[in-house]
């Protein structure tokens, strides 16, 4: 059985009188250690998939099975525990706590985890050992995103979910972040799911899930992922 499996996931939103089906019967599977990319245009439903996968929202139909557990059956409290222990989240705008230093931001996550990684080691891994005592406002965007990745990794999660991790970054920085994610996937055996509208990124993935109008328009297994250095956009 696959590590992550979505079976006919449907999510509807009510906007006043109108019901919008944001995700309309999505099925896909991702194996442990995969680097998966969910790609699609704005409004294709990829963020909803991310929300559902990240335990931030509940689905209306279907089920999502993560490491053998059906999280679609979880209540709010169980979802909180799921986010707490199983998911590492990397935001588009980093979402660091401004009043905590880089190190403290990472510790914030490691503190609530069951078997966290060593904070300094993780910061070292993302290349921020020298700057760990700086506040977010003293760091560049790329550095902030590295802190965010460190924060997600320090929890030692089952899945690393990244929402447009390069969206707010320039080309070079974005690339270095993607490299970091890819290295993490390869070296740590971490399952990484990146959500992006940037189709160029799909070439570095093991699994590519293309979305359109709330449905998976194409599911591809990439036998020869390109290293980050090889892609351009």
């Amino acid at each position, binding site marked *: 059985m696959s590590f992550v499996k979505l079976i006919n996931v449907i999510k509807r939103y009510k906007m006043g009188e109108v019901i919008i089906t944001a995700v309309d019967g999505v099925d896909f599977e991702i194996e442990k250690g995969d680097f998966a990319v969910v790609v699609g245009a704005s409004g294709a439903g990829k*963020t909803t998939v991310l*929300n559902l996968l*990240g335990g*931030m*929202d509940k689905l209306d139909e279907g089920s999502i099975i993560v490491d053998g557990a059906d999280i679609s059956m979880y209540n709010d*409290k169980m979802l*909180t*525990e*799921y*986010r*707490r*222990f199983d*998911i590492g*989240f990397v*935001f*588009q*705008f980093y*979402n660091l*706590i*401004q*009043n*905590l*230093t880089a190190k*403290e931001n990472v*510790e*914030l*996550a490691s*503190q*609530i985890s069951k078997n966290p990684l060593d904070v300094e080691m993780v910061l070292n891994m993302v290349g921020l050992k020298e700057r760990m005592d700086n*506040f*977010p*406002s*003293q760091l560049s965007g790329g550095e902030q995103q590295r802190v965010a990745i460190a*924060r997600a990794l320090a929890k030692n999660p089952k899945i690393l979910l990244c*929402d447009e991790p390069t969206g*707010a970054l320039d080309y070079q920085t974005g690339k270095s972040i993607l490299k970091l994610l890819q290295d993490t996937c390869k070296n740590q055996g971490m399952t990484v799911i990146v959500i992006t509208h940037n189709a160029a990124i799909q070439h570095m993935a093991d699994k590519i899930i293309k979305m359109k109008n709330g449905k998976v328009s194409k599911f591809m297994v990439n036998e020869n992922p390109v290293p980050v250095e090889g892609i351009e956009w």
Partner: protein
Amino acid sequence: MMKKRSFYKNLIRSISNSKGRFFSIMAIVFLGVSFFAGINATEPDMIISADKYYKEQNLSDFKIISPLGFKDEDLTEIKNIRGVSRIQNGYYKDLFLTTAEGDIDVAKLLSYDPQDFKDDVGINTPFLIEGRLPQNIGEISLESGFNAPKDIKIGDKLTASVPSGEDIHDGLNSTEYTVVGFISSPLYITYERGQTNIGDGSVDYFGYIYHEDFNMKHYNEIYISLVASEDHQAYSDGYEKIVKNPEALLEALGIAAMMRETKTFREELEESRDLFLESKAKAQAEIDKGQAELENAEKKIEQGANALSEMESRYKREIEMGQADLDYGKSAVEQAKISYFEGYAAWLEGYNEYQDGRMDLIEAKSELDDAKIQIENGETDLENARAQLETTQATIIALKEIQSGLPPEDEIPTQEEYDLLIEEIQLINPQLAQALKAYSPEYFDRFRQALDSSIITLEENYAQGQKQVEEGQRLLDESKLQYENGLKEYEAGVLLLQKAKAELDEAKLQIDFAKDEIEKGEIELQRGAQELEKAQAELDEALNKGYAELEKSREDVNEGWKIFEEEKRDALAKITEAEIEIKDAQRQLLELPKEWFVNTRDANPGYSSYGDDANRIGAVAKVFPLFFFLVAALVCLTTMTRMVEEERVQIGTLKALGYNTSSIALKYLAYGLLASLAGSVAGFLLGFQLFPRLIMTVYGGMYDIPYMLSPVHLDYAMLSTAIAVLTTVSASLWASLAALRTTPAQLMQPKAPKPGKRILIERIGLLWNHMNFTQKVTARNIFRYKRRFFMTVIGISGCSALLLAGYGIKDSVNAISQVQFDQVFLYDGIVAMDTGNKERAELQEVLGTNPGISEYASAMMESVSVFKDGGRQFEVSLWVPEAKNEFANFFDLHERVSKDPISLGDDGAVITEKLSRLFGVESGDSLEFRDSENRVYSFEIAGIAENYLGHNVFMSKEYFDKVTLREPEYNAGVFKLYEDRAFDESGFKEDILAFEGAVGVSLASTFREDFNETMSSLDYVVLILILSAGALAFVVLYNLTNINITERIREIATIKVLGFRSREISAYVYRENLILSFIGTVFGLFLGSILHRFVMDTMEVDNMMFGRIISGWSFLYAVILTMIFSVLVNVLMFFKLKKVDMVESLKSIE
């Protein structure tokens, strides 16, 4: 005007999209303004209401009372004073009114002349509540409410009576009055009705009767109105000013009038006093003279006695000296005797020795003689021995011849021969011959042998004899020497003996002489002793005579004293009599009225205490609403800043689209203006109605003022609105201008979040390293947003300060009733006796026989007015105990701080503390009091005692006498009840009042309950304070939390996504609130203590002294309630927190 339309649209959308924000500004402004305007309006409203009442009823500007009544000339003179518009004369009388049910009260009856009130010009017009005013004789209109008899109604009849000994018709025409109406009067707006000289000393209620019911010679009170008083508001400075001149003139008139009225009587009194002073002086002089004479005689006797005893001691000393000489002689003779006997004994001893020596010499002589004879004998013996020796020698020689002539050896002699031999031998030595005869010649050998041996023996004997003779000769020679020596000694001894004999004889002569001398001395001593005895006898006689004479003169003087004492008693009686007369005259002089009692409105206790109360509220109003205003300003500031920040992008867009700065800023200004203006208008509209009415209602329990005016005060409305609007608008302006100064491009960029900063406590590694992240974030946040910090600390400290002040006020008031009734008033009740009643029962009967009463004491208790230099008067109970020490069991007079007991002395009165504070006097200063008979006395203060309720002056009866020249009339009994016995109040009162002359019983417990009831209005104050404090805390914390949540919604969403549990999230947000609340609370407790003191200082009423201590419980309540408010807000906010959508975290930064 498209532009304008879209501006309005935008504005209205802004408002409707952020109703919460708009209303929160409105609400805080509303709260601040209504509190500020409402409380500030209370003072003027109270004064306006009272002033309306005073003007409607034409409250007099002066009320003057003449103790002797007013003459026509007085009235004319008063009318002539400049500024007087109208005078109205009247009568009054205090008497007892009995209801149909038999309740007796002391009432003050005032005259009502309908003529005076025609055309609405009457002064002190009674305010009609029900029925009508008296139109005829026998009609009465009573005061309503407050103190009037219970359940009385129109048509009821009241019977008037006066104390026994007086005639009711001596002043009034009717004795029965029918109630025709109920009124109140601007003269009596408080519960005080004044003091009187009947009953228990205080008036219970007042009423108006028809003026013709009075039949008095002169008017005894006059009401005066001033022209200018219509133009001035009561209590205003202008009013005070217009009263001053007429007051001085009236006082001067009064003094002159009284001088005129009392002149003759005064002179008479002075003359009679002087006469008695003279006779007193004469009597005193006589006493002094007699006393001086007797004392002189006594002095002489003393002198005689002294001379006598001096003489006695002198002669005694001489006799003693003689005796001493005698004793000395005696001892000398004794000494001589002793030495004589010693000499005699020595002589005797010498004599005996001499006799012994003589006997020894005689004995020695005889011994010497014996020795001489022996020597002589020895010489003879020696001669004999020598002769014998010679014989022996001859024998030996003979024998030896024989021997030599003997035959040879071996030959034996013949017999003859032999015989011959023997014969020869016979011749020489018969004995031997005898012996040899035994032998025969045959045995000649033997013979030979015998002869040899005999020769040997003889030779031996001879040698021996020779030796013996020699020895004897030697011994004899020795003895001879001895004898000669002894003889020499003897002769020397004889010589010595003779010498000793001569010495002894000499000594004997001396001894005999001494003996003669001693005998002579003894004779002399005897003679001296006899002389001494004689002298003593003579002295004793002389002394006895002297003392007898002295004793006699003493008796004479004593007799003189006795006579003098009798005379003195008479004289003293005369003096006492004179003194009584003098005192009487002086008392009458003292009691002579010296002036009119010119009372301005200030002298009316109701008028002045109402004014003071209004002032106090005014003072409080300056402080309390400050918190609200400060907080309101801060809240508006933060809210508007936040709003502008939230709409950054929009501002940027508008700016980019070409809108100019002012039109963009206008939106925020209009928003702020609308919110604050709406809040202000609603606030003052409600505030002007709510607070003055609420407070006046609370005071309504204490004051009888029928109007309650609460107009809109433009000044306060403008002021509060202006402050509120200005603060809000300038906050909006400041925030929007700050935003507008930046370029549109920057504006459209997400605003860089306020950077994190290191704070001081991070340096303290020990502390910081032990904190977790939420704690660290909290700590950094607290110091990061300073505006919020101050808003919260000010708001919360205001909240807890209000709470503490509220509870502190209660503490202070409760402290009064506790200390007053448990530590100062130790009595349980007072019974008033009618001293005018000649048949009244003794206090011993009334109280002593009551089974409920454990102890009691008698005292004089009078209500008097105390004042200083003609200033404000205060109604005071004057106490004069009959027995000072007993009284201390009922009133514990002590100094408040040191708790040192104060005793009543003879040279000053003890006053209660509040009274001393009101007048600003201390021990040694003096005050004046006016009693119910309108007599005025001045007294000195000797001590200031702790007391909280009412005012008391205590005097010892000695001091009272000194001040008034009167004996106090003991008209009250204070008593204590057995604590452990069941007490039936009404039965007890009935029992007491059944006694003749007992006119009233009041119980301390009733007093206490009444007081507590009056003070229960304070519960409203406390409640108002608690509610306002709660509102304050709510507004502040709600705003803070709201801002915290909206501003940090991303952060919260992020940590939600990170998997923080709800509890952790709320702790993340609330910890900041709680810490700030805590800091605010601590600060607020300091602030509250100051506030409490200020409130107590300004709120204190004249007849009470409040405690100043806040109990620990109140601190606790203040802290707990503040915390409850803050927790409540947090609970409310919890739901808002829960609703924060995690999707927010995915959004871009606005």
